[in-house]
């Protein structure tokens, strides 16, 4: 694997992460924010894999497994929250939830 390929992969990973962040920030629908979060998480995942491949090390993939676990748990909890909020507030707008307002 060439250094250029690694660089490209890293750029892609950064782009994915940034896109995810943009999604989280810009969208107000909780579902969309969750999807964007998945996108954002896939960026680091790609970075781990690419770096692991570059160094010929299994640890990259090991980390990927952990990221995957994290994503799964997060989606599960996030969707449960989504349903819960929808039921209690009757809306899927994340701005409607502001109990932490100072």
């Amino acid at each position, binding site marked *: 694997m060439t250094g250029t390929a690694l660089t490209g992969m890293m750029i892609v990973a950064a*782009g994915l992460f940034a896109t995810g962040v943009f999604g989280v920030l810009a969208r107000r629908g909780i579902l969309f924010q969750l999807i964007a979060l998945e996108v954002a998480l896939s960026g680091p995942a790609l970075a781990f894999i690419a770096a692991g491949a570059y160094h010929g090390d299994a640890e990259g993939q090991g980390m*990927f497994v952990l990221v995957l676990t*994290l994503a799964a748990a997060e989606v599960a909890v996030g969707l449960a929250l989504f349903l819960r909020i929808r039921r209690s507030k009757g809306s899927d707008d994340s701005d409607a939830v502001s109990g932490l307002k100072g």
Partner: protein
Amino acid sequence: MALIAAALAVTRYNVVHALLYLLAMLLALAAAFFALGAAFAAVLLIMVYAGAIVVLFVFVVMAVGTSPQAIAREREMLQRSWPMPAAISVLVAAPFLFGIGEQAAGNTAPIAAQAVGRLLFGPWAWAIELASFLLLAGLIGVRHIGRDRAQEPEE
């Protein structure tokens, strides 16, 4: 390819479209993993993400349903406030992009699934345990959050 799909995924107004683009992004990513010699990870990605997580989303969307009003509202909301997040995400990405320099050539051999397994269940056993606890906590949390209070008289 993955980037375009990702960009589309976060900008769609319809949930189902967004999900489809997410799926496309994940497949593109899996292809990239294959290319990087991480077959195990690619398979895992497709199975867990595309198979489980996206399906979970779909279930929820089906349960909640989608409506033209919701789509219209999403559109309105996004059009109103996109520049600021965009600027910030550029700001986040910029240091990465500048920080990445040209690298020397590295290893090209694919990494076998056995290696990953040996790593995970050898030195990283604690990490696995932690991850499993995370999943367990997520499970319990979902059960707790998802409970319908109206049906429980004591609360």
